[in-house]
């Protein structure tokens, strides 16, 4: 694998680290299997791309992408909490609806961002090659976001959110309004995924309605790889696991697709991802069975 291809994989991995952290918040912290992310990722990309092409500051575009993602998360939480629709189904409904909404936002299936001002533009002129600048800038953003999420989960409010996911009945008995925490958690999770979408559009130079397909599996893959490597007992370790897991996953995929001997094509990505996640889910179970017999 060439240096540029490697750094490209790292860059994508870091962009998807935001997805991994969002998925971690929904699946692990709230115990809310959330497929909304397949819609909120391209939603973030669409919102940021449309705003940037109409001349709005790219950071404002990122903020709008976060808000849009958060609203998508709130819709899913609302369907589930207010009307008792099963979480998985509620999130699928939002995801499907977002496909149409994303097309509306962009007015067409994709928007190009070539030669537009992005959050990365100011850093390109520093004399470092572009393929170093992108991962570096995204890395700094990931660290900041991971730190903020860790601090949030260590607060009274964040701890109550964790309790909501672990034991909702106990949380309520301790005065935690579990509904509020599910709304906030889902908004936060999908806000982060929206941000990932916005950054994806800016690093890759386009937003496309189909980029959302499989986002959830990629995010879950990153979370699981991180958990397998770190076996985290603290939130900070779990979040580091999300970031590292996301990067390792991307590099591994890149490696697999790049190795001619295996004969895989780029279009096999989703199959490879699904197989990897399935294996990662099955392995601990097999290990457990061996231990008991």
């Amino acid at each position, binding site marked *: 694998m060439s240096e540029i291809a490697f750094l490209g994989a790292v860059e994508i991995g870091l962009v998807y680290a935001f997805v991994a952290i969002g998925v971690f918040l929904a699946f692990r912290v709230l115990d809310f299997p959330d497929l909304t992310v397949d819609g909120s990722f391209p939603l973030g990309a669409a919102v940021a791309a449309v705003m940037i092409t109409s001349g709005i500051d790219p950071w404002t575009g990122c903020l709008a992408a976060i808000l849009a993602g958060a609203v998508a998360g709130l819709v899913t939480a609302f369907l589930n909490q207010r009307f008792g629709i099963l979480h998985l189904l509620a999130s699928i409904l939002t995801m499907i609806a977002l496909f149409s909404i994303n097309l509306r936002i962009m007015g067409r299936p994709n928007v190009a961002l070539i030669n537009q001002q992005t959050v990365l533009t100011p850093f390109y002129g520093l004399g470092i090659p572009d393929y170093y600048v992108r991962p570096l800038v995204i890395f700094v953003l990931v660290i900041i976001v991971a730190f903020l999420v860790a601090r949030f989960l260590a607060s009274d409010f964040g701890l109550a959110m964790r309790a909501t996911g672990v034991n909702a009945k106990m949380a309520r*008995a301790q005065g935690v309004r579990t509904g509020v925490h599910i709304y906030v958690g889902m908004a936060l999770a999908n806000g982060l995924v929206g941000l990932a979408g916005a950054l994806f559009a800016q690093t890759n130079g386009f937003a496309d309605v189909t980029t959302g397909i499989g986002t959830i599996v990629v995010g879950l893959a990153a979370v699981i790889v991180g958990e397998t490597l770190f076996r985290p007992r603290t939130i900070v370790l779990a979040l580091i696991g999300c970031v590292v897991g996301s990067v390792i996953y991307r590099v591994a995929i890149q490696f697999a697709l790049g190795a001619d001997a295996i004969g895989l094509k780029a279009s096999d990505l989703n199959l490879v991802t699904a197989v990897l996640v399935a294996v990662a889910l099955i392995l601990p179970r097999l290990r457990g069975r061996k231990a008991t017999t």
Partner: protein
Amino acid sequence: MIRVSGLDIVFGKGTPLEKQALRGIDFSVPEHEFVSVIGSNGAGKSTLLSAIAGDVLPQAGRIEIGGVDVTRSPTAIRAGKVARVFQDPLAGSCGTLSIEENLALAAARGTKRMLGLAITRNRREMFRQRLTELGLGLEGRLDDQMGLLSGGQRQALALVMATLAGADVLLLDEHTAALDPAMAEFVLDLTQRVVQERKVTTLMVTHSMRQALDHGDRTVMLHEGRIILDVSGHERSNLSVEDLIQMFRDVRGQEIDDDSLLIE
């Protein structure tokens, strides 16, 4: 402190499985009183507790706690005044959170949870002190996961958690039923100590007539959703388990077919 009037609770109303759990319960507990509640399976003991805690909403009637009508307010809102220990030791705490995180959750009960750090030096100091008083050696294990503790240890911690933030009402739902006899004894003694020290109004549901008579100031017996016996003071201190069983027969005019009532 607690006033329940005309409380009706029906589960599965309008279905073939409809069951009236409570029938027009009128019942009040003055401040600082420790009431033990007994009754056979399905008598409505746990339902009464759940109704006071807010987990079950009544079809009719009224519940007041500390003079405030809480009939329609959700569990989380009542939790500022009402603390609870469940029968299942796993239900009262979060197994994947650490001991100190569980305690911090309880310490913030009744306050507005904001973005301040949940585990501060002050809180940790307070946790350590409360756990030292417990005498189970848990004060050195604040970082350990709750799931590593035994059922008895978790139940003892649940009692500490119930009183950490100060509550007006303590609800104990057969909280020793799932423990081995030695640990059950320990948790009961701890309960007695905590209730006396904290002067908290307490309702303790139990399966054991012995426990019901040995602990608390007053004993209430439920049967098929009604209160059929309510004794306190002198009358109660002269009661034996055999008397209770006899009274139960007299009131109901039938044989007791539920062995569990006789278990001591």
